[in-house]
């Protein structure tokens, strides 16, 4: 592990001052994270067919094109090769429902790249996760189109899948009983959720595929465990305590962990270096905040799924968290860090 930079050091370089020195590192991280999303992408293609590949590709192409066009227009150095626009496009693509018309990925990519990232001065300064803002912008602009979910066909050639509701959507509007009616029993529900044989956004349905990528990132040291563990942990605990109907401590944490975009969010989006806190303690707080807000929205809010909004809301607090934890140990950062290892 000596040769690999710890996430901590990389973050400091990226978020504080994007020097040329860090450019190579940045691009290596971006491409590695993109590679870690490969299992999820393959599962998306498997369950939702050629349309999925088309949508993901289109999102990536338009994100990269938007970045290139903006940087050329503003006479800035063109940095599309660092992979960050590619990753944003890929994440946004994986977050789209499989049925959207072609202009949705384009609008989303432009919003993600221009409004969320480049207006703030480019990579390293954006406050919000670009892919998630793109997704939220689309959800609010096209509420109908963004909530039509196709049934996974599990056949590469199948066309015109039936539309249906996501497991979380069924939970929200009709309750757990109906969900059990659809899936039979708990075991087959978990199985479907883990494999990804349910309705949902392209890349988030298969919890296992996302988990494989996430573990790859953890092992290679591209992300630290703090955010994913505190995010998933707090969500699971809250789901267990408050998720049940009527009585406390009767909820189903496994179902909540496996469904929706929780895995994808916890490993790939909440951990975004630029928009999450750089201090470890801050990361734990950030993760717990995300978990809390996710469950708050899922159980009490208007939307069936809360991961996206939870991460975005916590993104608002990132500068504040960083500020309070940094000033606390100002001057002693180095020492503490060494001690922590």
């Amino acid at each position, binding site marked *: 592990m000596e040769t690999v930079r710890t996430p901590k050091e990389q973050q400091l370089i990226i978020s504080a001052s994007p020097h040329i020195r860090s450019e190579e590192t940045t691009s290596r991280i971006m491409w590695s994270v993109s590679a870690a999303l490969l299992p999820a992408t393959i599962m998306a293609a498997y369950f939702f067919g050629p349309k999925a590949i088309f949508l993901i590709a289109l999102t990536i192409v338009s994100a990269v094109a938007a970045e290139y066009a903006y940087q050329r227009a503003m006479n800035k150095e063109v940095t599309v090769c660092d992979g960050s626009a590619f990753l944003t496009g890929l994440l946004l693509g994986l977050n789209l429902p499989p049925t959207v018309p072609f202009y949705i990925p384009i609008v989303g990519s432009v919003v993600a790249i221009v409004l969320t990232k480049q207006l703030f001065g480019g990579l390293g300064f954006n406050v919000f996760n670009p892919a998630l803002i793109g997704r939220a912008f689309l959800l609010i602009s*096209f*509420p109908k189109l963004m909530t039509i979910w196709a049934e996974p066909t599990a056949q590469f050639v199948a066309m015109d899948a039936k539309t249906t509701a996501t497991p979380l959507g069924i939970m929200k509007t009709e309750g757990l009983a109906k969900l059990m009616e659809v899936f039979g029993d708990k075991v087959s529900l978990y199985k479907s959720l883990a494999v990804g044989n349910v309705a949902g956004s392209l890349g988030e349905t298969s919890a296992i595929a996302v988990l494989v990528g996430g573990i790859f990132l953890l092992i290679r040291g591209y992300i630290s465990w703090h955010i994913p563990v505190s995010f998933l942990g707090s969500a699971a605990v809250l789901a267990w305590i408050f998720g049940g109907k009527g009585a406390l401590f009767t909820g189903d944490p496994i179902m909540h962990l496996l469904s929706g975009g929780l895995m994808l969010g916890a490993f790939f989006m909440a951990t975004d270096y630029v928009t999450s806190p750089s201090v470890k303690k801050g990361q734990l707080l950030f993760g717990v905040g995300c978990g809390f807000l996710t469950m708050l929205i899922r159980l009490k809010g*208007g939307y069936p799924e809360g991961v996206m909004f939870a991460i975005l809301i916590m993104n608002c607090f990132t500068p504040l968290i960083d500020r309070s934890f940094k000033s606390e140990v100002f001057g002693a950062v180095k020492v503490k860090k060494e001690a922590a290892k």
Partner: protein
Amino acid sequence: MTTKDILKIVANLVVIYLVGGAILSYVHANTSPIRYQNNIIAEEKALKLLIPDADKIEKMGDWEIHEKHGKYWKATKGEEVIGYVVLSFGKGYSSYIKTLIAVDKDFKVMKIEILDHKETPGLGDEILVPAWKDQFVGKDFDHIKLVKGETKEYIQAITGVTISSRAVTDDAVKNGVKFLIDTVKGGGAAHGGSH
């Protein structure tokens, strides 16, 4: 401060309060009847649209639902009672949906009208689409029920807008009609509660 200053300040205040007060009271006196009238006219117009046949719609009383102030009316043609109207509220996605429901003398729904709501634009506001609202026509109390998927017998939920369409159907309309049946049929008190 000299005496002159004090006098000037007092004079300032007196004149301004007198002139200002006079102008304000004049405007208020002239506009308040119009504003009052506007509300009455708007209400009458809405009621008339619900039961165009009636030649008189008179208020019977008030009731309360979700701590909101509802009302109900009796519609007559000549001497005969031809129906009732009730103002009801349903708890929707992000607002209470203010709904007027007209029923005939057998308490079958004649028409409903959504007066006010703050549901999500582009999604929740599909409850305003006439084709959806027309489903209520002719339904009696037992058939005011939201179901997903094709139905002629009950009320069909709008895809993706379940919460808002349920708020109108199972909350506002159902409770409104129930209130009318309980109160008018039972000849009960003017102030009925709701569930």
